[in-house]
Structure formats: C-alpha cells, structure tokens
C-alpha cells in the first residue's frame, strides 16, 4: 500500500511536543518540480553507472511502497522522536 501519512513527533528538552503531519500525496504534488529534477538526475546517474533506469525506478518505487507501517521511536532522557509512516 502506498504511504499516505508521515507523522513526526519530537519532544524538546523542555518537555513540549512538536507534531508534524505530512500527507504524502499532496506533499509529492507540491514538490513535483523538484521530484522531476531528482528523477532526471537519477536517470543521468543510471546512464553514467550503466544501471538499468527502469529497474532503478521500479526498485525505488518498491522501496517507497514498502515503507508503509514503519515506526521508529527513540527516547533519551528529555528528548524523544517518533517517526511513523502510515
């Protein structure tokens, strides 16, 4: 399943939580010009390194799709970080 929402939570040393919700599809649409540049740069890199661009695109897509369900929680004394991909 395609990732839909990335949640970032960060607890600062003063104990206050910062939350950031990133909807993936709208963010990708907003950043589409940059993504297009990144894809072009990737294609050039594939050509230089003689890697199949189709295979690279497919693998990158699979990697992004597989991110759904990832959850990383780190807590160290006053600071804490939570990254969740849904």
């Amino acid at each position: 399943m395609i990732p839909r929402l990335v949640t970032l939570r960060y607890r600062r040393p003063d104990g206050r939580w910062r939350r950031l919700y990133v909807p993936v599809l709208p963010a990708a649409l907003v950043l589409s010009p940059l993504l297009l540049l990144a894809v072009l740069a990737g294609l050039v890199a594939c050509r230089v390194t003689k890697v199949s661009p189709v295979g690279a695109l497919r693998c990158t897509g699979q990697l992004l799709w597989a991110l759904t369900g990832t959850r990383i929680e780190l807590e160290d004394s006053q600071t804490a970080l939570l990254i969740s991909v849904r």
Partner: protein
Amino acid sequence: MNEQRRQILEMLAEGKITADEAERLIDAVGREQPEPPPGAALRPKSRPKYLRVLMVDNSAEEPSRVNIRVPLQLLRAGVRLASLIPPQALTRINAALDKSGVPIDLGQIKPQDIEEVIEQLDDVTVDIDDPDAKVQVFCE
C-alpha cells in the same frame, strides 16, 4: 477420526459395549476435545510482516528507549535495490567489507535467498537481558 473414537467403535464392534454406551462415550469424547472451527486446519500460519527491535537502556539516570518496527517488505525491496549496484562498485564494497572483518559477497545475495530467510524469521527471537539494558529482536 481420532484414536479414542476408533477405540470406542472397535469396542462396539466386538460387543464389549452397547450402542447406547458407545454413543455416550463418543459424546463425552466430543465434549473433552471440541472440534476445531471449519477451515482452521487448512488455514496457513500467518507470515510475519514486521521486524521489531526494542531496546531499553537503564544505565543512565533516565532510561533510554528505542522501539523500531520495520516492514519485512522493506528488506525485500532493499535486496532488490542492492542487485542494481554496478559491478565495479560491488567489488569495492566487498573489499571494504572484507577489510572491516565482514567477508560477505553482496553479489551472492539474491531475492529468492532473502525470501527463505524471511520465511524462517518467524521463529527467531533474540532476547538479551542485562541489569542495565534489555534488547529484544523478533518478528510479528
């Protein structure tokens, strides 16, 4: 048919018990061992979906915690991505790994091999208990 029912029917056939007694015995055996729900035996064991790493470090005044859940699908995708590494880069990576004391040939890691590893991961649990730290690695 389980072994107890077979024995009861054999006793009935040999005339050791009457039909009523056999019926009562079969009912009693059925109550002791309820039938599994239909399809339960055919249902395959669910495959693990996530790799979970839990760590608690109590050595400091305030404990540190790490809780990571990674989809196993990410492992598969990563291996496929590794298969795209150019041969000249692969040679250098293998040499660097060998130099660091990890003699692994990345070129030998194939997606079908990782499938076998993932299938067996269900039974793997790493549990390290220390007075200052606790580490758990398992699949769920």
